[in-house]
């Protein structure tokens, strides 16, 4: 029987004492040995965040919980497809939640995203233990968002959280689409710079 891996009040207190991505380690255990304890820890951390995220997109609590359940079941069934090469567990769960949301709106099929993931499927060379600091990167994203100009941050939040297309952002803010795009581009590029200096 495995001991609970994570002390939530101190994310650095992993078994190795390194800056391991604790969630990647948990997910790795789900993938390797269907570890329900590890899954429960992932659920307790991510389900309430996915719920908030869905509610900010306009779901009521009940719809949000439906999507949370679907997302967390996908975490269980797709755990072996996660690759630290592509980012943190939070980023992976974000893509799962985004794809569910897209399918829910029936604007298109999220298969268009999953096809692309297959091109960069993990080659098995990197395990969770080898990849460090990915969950740290999530913290840096939040910090970096605070450091970019407010008009760029606003556009990223409208896109990622409120799901507003760029043409609609242009109408809402009464600015040309070209301005929306250049702010979006600058915002993204500044975020990358900030993240690359710390990771």
């Amino acid at each position, binding site marked *: 029987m495995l001991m609970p891996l994570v002390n939530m009040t101190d994310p650095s207190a992993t078994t190795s004492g390194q800056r391991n991505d604790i969630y990647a380690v948990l997910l790795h255990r789900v993938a390797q040995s269907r570890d329900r304890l590890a899954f429960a820890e992932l659920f307790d951390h991510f389900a309430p965040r996915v719920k908030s995220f869905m509610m900010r997109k306009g779901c009521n609590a009940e719809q949000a919980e439906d999507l949370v359940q679907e997302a967390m079941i996908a975490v269980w069934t797709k755990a072996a497809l996660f690759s630290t090469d592509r980012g943190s567990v939070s980023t992976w*769960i974000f893509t799962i939640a985004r794809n569910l949301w897209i399918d829910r709106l029936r604007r*298109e099929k999220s298969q*268009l995203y999953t096809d692309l993931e297959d091109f960069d499927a993990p080659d098995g060379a990197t395990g969770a233990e080898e990849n460090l600091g990915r969950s740290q990167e999530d913290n840096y994203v939040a910090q970096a968002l605070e450091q970019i100009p407010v008009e760029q941050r606003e556009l990223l939040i409208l*896109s*990622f959280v409120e799901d507003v297309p760029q043409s609609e952002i242009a109408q809402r803010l009464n600015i040309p689409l070209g301005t929306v795009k250049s702010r979006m581009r600058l915002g993204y590029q500044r975020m990358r710079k900030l993240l690359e200096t710390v990771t």
Partner: protein
Amino acid sequence: MKIAHHLDDATLVGFAAGTLAPAHSIVASAHMALCPQCRATLHKAEAIGGGILADQAPTAVSQTLRAATLASLEGLPVSAPKKPSAPLKAGALPDVLVRALGVTSLDQIKWHRKLPGVAIYDVPLPKGTKAKLKLLALEKGRAMPDHGHGGEELTLVLKGSYSDKFGKFTAGDVADLAEDVEHQPIVDSDETCICLISFDVPAKFKSIWARLAQPFSGM
């Protein structure tokens, strides 16, 4: 395949966030199936979504949801690790286009011909989506229709080539240009140039046929 023209970062952020209209998503996805560079940018943009998700203040979920989710895991089929897909062979259609076009090869397209040297196929899209998606087949010397003006427009070359002031666009290249850009792309390949074009339909929309029928100099 050497790709020289890529998606704009703003388009990739929109794709990462899931806000691109279906027509644009299909073109962007078809380019990315061919382009590791844009896929890498996509994953970086998705990390912004991941950071925002991680930073959400938690909203407690009901105890019944937790129990029901944990109970539902029993016996669920789980995915095995995947091998990376092999890069697409030259001329092969990415899966996203096989689905969108309903063909496995461009030779099977049922073209609609109205003008000499020009054929068009309207790609069906889900109801209620505003942006349009069309395949365009143009013979050497024909001009591409001018830019949509007033919205987003993506052009992906699938076969042949055209050139404009931004250079030569060959199979895999995508033109993702600002709406106010003036340019005049002319097909310069001996073989027919086939492009996939997605565009927003502006309020005062001039049909693609009308735009194609204009004399080259006026475009």
